[in-house]
């Protein structure tokens, strides 16, 4: 098992004091392994943003320990902390670019802070623009760039100082689905190619599904559960986990009655061709009448992504599952005691 690069131990953060005290985090312990993409998910107000800000000490925890790359962050002096922060990149939902600087100069900014000569900084920035696929937009100001392009500039900016860790605070939440996927792919690519550990904070299960290996679920400042994405998808143990894995909008009574009669399965589409009519094939080829209890699927460039919740009649359910399993890019699992 890879060494943990980030260790949060018994992290507690409270804001304010007295009666108005807000418990943003309560005794949260998380380990992120070097080189992985780790997700932190929770509804708004769950403490995700506070958690990620405790990693680079934009927020100082009230209690607990923060260890990044072997350094006890809370023991660093201001000056040492600034140095360490250069090795922890961060991108944001609102991009937070300098509006009065060009894309190129935004990327030069952290190098300028580190005291790099202008020429070297420009050369590095041009290289990074290439990596994020924005080579032609060096002279553009943020106001002239689209949301996705702004986030690409922000990513290039954090890469300028060769960070070991990249923190993504709802980095795709302001973007449309197509752009979200592009940015997630870029983050994945950076993780693989440059070996940068990534921590992704999000409220969208799709984002976790898409790129994370392991995930922690936060609920009202508490760590509800943590595990591999498959584990949590297959059988969320906590209430918060169930709420996230099984999206809202599926009426409980439908599910209960369905669970009484039928077997419920979750089908995940992982990018196979969307021209193949799965439900119709099930009915015609296997003679199984599947009932769609809930679905969250999308078609991107002719490929299907997402999950679908199917109710299957008891007889024929095994046949149907065997059939679905044999399909390319589709995984299936039974949801034994499903409730919404």
């Amino acid at each position: 098992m890879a060494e943990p690069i980030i260790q949060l131990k018994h992290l507690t953060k409270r804001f304010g004091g007295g009666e108005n005290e807000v418990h943003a985090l309560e005794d949260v312990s998380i380990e992120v392994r070097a080189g992985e993409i780790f997700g932190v998910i929770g509804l708004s107000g769950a403490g995700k943003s506070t958690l990620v800000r405790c990693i680079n000490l934009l927020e100082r925890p009230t209690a607990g320990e923060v260890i990044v790359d072997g350094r006890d962050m809370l023991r660093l002096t201001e000056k040492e902390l600034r140095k360490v922060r250069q090795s922890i990149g961060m991108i944001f939902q609102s991009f937070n670019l300098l509006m009065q600087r060009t894309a190129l100069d935004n990327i030069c900014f952290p190098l300028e802070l580190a005291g790099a000569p202008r020429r070297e900084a420009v050369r590095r920035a041009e290289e990074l623009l290439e990596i994020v696929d924005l080579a032609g937009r060096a002279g553009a100001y943020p106001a002239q760039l689209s949301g996705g392009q702004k986030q690409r500039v922000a990513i290039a900016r954090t890469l300028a100082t060769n960070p070991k860790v990249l923190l993504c605070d709802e980095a795709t939440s302001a973007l449309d689905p197509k752009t979200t996927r592009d940015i997630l792919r870029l983050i994945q690519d950076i993780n693989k190619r440059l070996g940068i550990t990534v921590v992704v904070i999000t409220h969208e299960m799709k984002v976790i599904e898409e790129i994370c290996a392991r995930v922690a679920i936060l609920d009202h400042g508490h760590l509800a559960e943590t595990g591999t994405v498959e584990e949590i998808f297959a059988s969320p143990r906590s209430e918060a986990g169930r709420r996230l894995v099984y999206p809202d909008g599926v009426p409980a009574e439908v599910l209960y009655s369905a669970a009484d009669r039928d077997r419920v399965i979750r089908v995940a589409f992982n990018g196979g061709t969307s021209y193949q009519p799965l439900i119709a094939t099930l009915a015609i080829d296997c003679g199984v009448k599947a009932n769609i209890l809930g679905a969250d699927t999308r078609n991107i460039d002719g490929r299907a992504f997402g999950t679908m919740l199917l109710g299957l009649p008891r007889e024929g359910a095994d046949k149907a599952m065997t059939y679905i399993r044999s399909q390319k890019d589709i995984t299936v699992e039974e949801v034994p005691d499903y409730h919404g």
Partner: protein
Amino acid sequence: MADFFADPQVLRFLQEAPFAIWETVYSTLIATALAYVIGLPLGVVLVAGENGRILKVPGPLMTALNVAVNLLRSVPFLILMVIVIPLSRLLLGTSVGTPASIVPLVAAAAPFVARIVESSLRELDAGVVEAAQAMGCSPWQIITKVMLSECRPSLINGLTTATITILSYGAMAGAIGAGGLGSMALMKGYQRQMTVMLWGSVILLVLLVQLIQSIGTALSVKTDRRINPTESRRRKRK
């Protein structure tokens, strides 16, 4: 027309106006510069020191600064001019004349400038400061490279407003013996009932204000990189 220029009042106005303009311009410029020397750092501290967000300024000191700024701002300029007379004597050895009027001008304008700078800097999205901190920016770098340079267009607008306000304060200082267009309007125009002097100097003041505002707005727009959609459309067409 010839009669108009032969009028002794008009002649006198034409003779005296250039020097009055000069006095108004230089006292305004010097007072504005000095007001910014004091007000700009003060405005920066008021924003950066708030809750120790960027600068670790002790809470009581922040409160004291805020109270001091509010106190100075709540005294009407006419009264402030009289109150600072001893200070003018101490600093310049005299309390009358155009140079002496710069002292009350700065005393009144510095806290005003501090508030104007403060409100400009508050326009900056807190997220941008946060991003800079996450990159390892020092407080000094945040102030110079992020706050001041990101807010440049708004700061220039503030400078325009401050200059115009100081110009009008300067005109009021005519009442305590300062020279310039204000004194021309008050002392000669109003008190000695020289209508040409009164209206002539008022027209010159209006023109000066227009000039300052036009230069300020043009500079602010020209240096702003947050190009608005219509602007960029216009640029594309070119």
